[in-house]
């Protein structure tokens, strides 16, 4: 459930949040406000996906799981 909530955040930030930040000024970190907002969400998405990866029980154990497979030459 927590994982689902986390996954919803980038969608809210980019699709809904933009409604409130559709402006050029003030420049934030030297960028037009809307662009700065979207860039922040690009970075946050990476962080969120990292958190999800750590929380997700699918990612424990050996990477190949039941489908261990030797590389074909």
């Amino acid at each position, binding site marked *: 459930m927590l994982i689902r909530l986390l996954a919803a955040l980038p969608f809210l930030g*980019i699709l809904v949040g*933009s*409604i409130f930040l*559709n402006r050029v000024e003030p*420049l934030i970190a030297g960028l037009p406000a809307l*662009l700065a907002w979207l860039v922040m969400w690009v970075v946050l*998405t990476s962080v969120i*996906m990292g958190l999800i*990866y750590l929380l997700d029980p699918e990612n424990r154990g050996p990477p190949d799981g039941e489908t261990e497979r030797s590389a074909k030459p």
Partner: protein
Amino acid sequence: MNAGSALAIIAFTAALALGLGLWARHGKSMSLEEWTVGGRHFGSIFVFLLLAGEIYTTFTFLGGSGYAYGKGGPAYYIISYGCLAYVISYWLLPPIWRYAKERHLVSQPDFFVAKYDSPALGVLVSIVGIVALVPYLVLQFKGLGIIVSTASYGLIPPHVAIWIGAAVVTAYVIVSGMHGSAWTSVLKDFTILAVVVFLGIYLPIHWYGGFDRMFNAIQAAKPGFLALPAKGQSLAWFDSTVALTALGFFMWPHGFAASYSAKHERVFRHNAILLPLYQLILLFVFFVGFAAILQVPGLTGPEIDLALFRLSLKTFSPWVVGIIGGAGVLTALVPGSLILLAAATLLSKNVYRTFRGATSDAHISMVARWLVPVVALVSVYFTLRGGNTIVALLLMGYSFVTQFFPSVLMSLLRHNPVTKEGAFIGICVGVITVAVMSSLDVSLAKVAPSAPQAFQDLNIGIVALGLNIIATTIVSAVTRRVPSPHHA
């Protein structure tokens, strides 16, 4: 030592890429599986680069900077959709990959044929896929044309440059297949990263004295240009376009099939963390476009794609232009080759074989190789007809491939509520809607002049997707009853 040096560097880059392609193939027997999905043993880094190879194409390099130059704020959709697509990929790609591996699937239509037990659906998906790939290939050729003709300082006219570009891409695919793409991807990513970051930082500082100053100058000259307009490419357009492209991101035949090349499913989960950051390169692409707004004004319509090169010509000496051109050639060559490969494989394996009946893999592989130049020629034809911007071409392709999303998603459920008839009709309805609306150039504003502005601004692909879902639901509900006669 002017035009010649730029062209020489570009020719050298193309030769190097061909050499890498040959070298990657060296000593390998190329079965159909090997040629198309790299034998399914690529690890995180390679799949990362292949999927990145899909993303950082001429579309980004010339299309992205051109759109930032010509449209301003609406270009931000390009930095937004990838992110959301990677969030989706975390859950979407592992089950697709597992299924593909179990069944030894090679292409995207294979997936539909197996899931829905319907060769007809496979043929439909192949044809829609090819139709969507053509504008994508056209935009790579268009980019190659711009690069070669600009770097020759007008010596080589654009149409000749397009022919040269198409010939190089075709030769590249025929000699190397998938392995060549992966290796050249490595080379491409390093050069494009360096070139774009350099240009994105250097140009604003060189021409304006800094980023703040550049944005203030643009805001003073064109107030509100760097945000979304109230009409046209408004917030409704932005949201619907981001949604359309995020859902369609992994529905491209070549992207879908490139995901088969992963060694294990965790590759996709790693990539979902790393690839969003890779999107930040786009920021520098935008800076190039923004820097061009006040420096090379006056480019309109499809000409906006020239913004990056026009500004480079104005700023740098020929050998720097040559390096930029070389990087540009790679960004067109790698994705161009993947797209050509995908289209040729679709035609041979999923259309030709279905009609021809069982034929050997060797025969299909041979047919695929012969189809490579055929597809290239068709794309050259459309490229020479011209008229659209690079971004418009890609969005058209997206409107087609996103129509696959509902039936792919539903097929991953334990009990798929969608029947093969539902999937078939749904895809047809979506694709026909897009084809009719875009070929007749009918906008929603014309269809529903009294509807709210937000509705009129919606991306047509999203409207088509809505109709697709409705059709899929209705037809599935009707056809699901038929095979259960005991259920009275």
